[in-house]
């Protein structure tokens, strides 16, 4: 827990200063989670604000302060899911669609000013984003929480409110779909390689 239970109880009772402190404590973590869930840097802050807005108006429904973190994760997942449903991710990235940071990065890469590590990181992000866009929003969110955020099955149980076995099945299926997409991407790149070699 990043804050003590007392602060959450005060926020629940309508103390604005306490709510402010809760947001300040959790905003960075929430922004990071949303960034990994939606992969569109320009909209991360907007979705995070929506999460805290929902938190403000639903705090009174929180039964105990002990379950605050899974509750916040749940709100984050729901907001990310709503966002992804509204803005179906496009497979291709157009320059007009990129954030300022991404445009600068793309320019720098083109100019050869970015070192090898940065280029590699960008490649990893693009690869995983492409793989995750090949599966449904629900699979994407579940896999990101488990494999990237590193949440345990117990934590996921509290967020999704389903038992461990059901979660394991969902995770297995989601993973299979991503593996299939990975296999297809591998076949495609090998095909291109062969075609190039023939030319």
């Amino acid at each position, binding site marked *: 827990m990043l804050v003590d239970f007392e602060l959450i109880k005060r926020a629940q009772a309508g103390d604005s200063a306490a709510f*402010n402190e809760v*947001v*300040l404590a959790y*905003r*960075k973590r929430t*922004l*990071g989670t*949303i*960034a*990994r869930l939606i992969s569109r*840097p320009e909209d*991360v*802050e907007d979705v*995070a*604000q929506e999460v*805290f*807005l929902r938190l*403000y*108006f639903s705090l009174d429904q929180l039964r105990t302060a002990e379950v605050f973190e899974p509750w916040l994760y749940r709100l984050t997942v729901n907001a990310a899911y709503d966002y992804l449903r509204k803005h179906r991710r496009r497979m291709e990235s157009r320059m007009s669609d990129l954030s300022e940071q991404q445009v600068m990065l793309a320019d720098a890469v083109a100019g050869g000013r970015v070192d090898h590590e940065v280029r*590699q*990181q*960008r490649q*990893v*992000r693009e*690869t*995983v984003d492409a*793989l995750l866009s090949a599966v449904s929003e629900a699979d994407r969110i579940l*896999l990101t929480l488990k*494999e*990237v*955020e*590193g949440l345990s099955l117990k934590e996921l149980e509290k967020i999704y409110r389903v038992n461990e076995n059901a979660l394991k099945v969902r995770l297995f299926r989601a*993973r299979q779909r*991503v*593996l299939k997409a*990975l*296999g297809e991407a591998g076949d495609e790149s090998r095909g291109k390689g062969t075609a190039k070699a023939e030319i």
Partner: protein
Amino acid sequence: MSNYRNNRGDANAELNTLFQAYRAACPETEPSANFMPEIWRRIEDRQRSMFFLGRWARAFVTAAAVLSLGMAAYLYIPKGHNTIISVESYVEAIAAGHAVDSAEFIDPSLDEL
């Protein structure tokens, strides 16, 4: 078969490595200076719209209640013509309704024809 398993195992390991690398490759997202003020602005906007919605809903409920009471009163208060207790017989009522056909207005000369 074992080749297939090896391939699946390799793909799983590759996916795990990719996810780990992805976590490391995602940059830290720093909140902008406008983050907190914007949250409070949105909270106040929502509260304002909820307040107006609440007022509108209360006004609607009041109007609906008044209308219902009015309709109930209209339906249950006895109407004026229902209170007249008729003492006429059926024949008297028919005769009253067809006053032109009564005997005193029939021309006696017509009987002779």
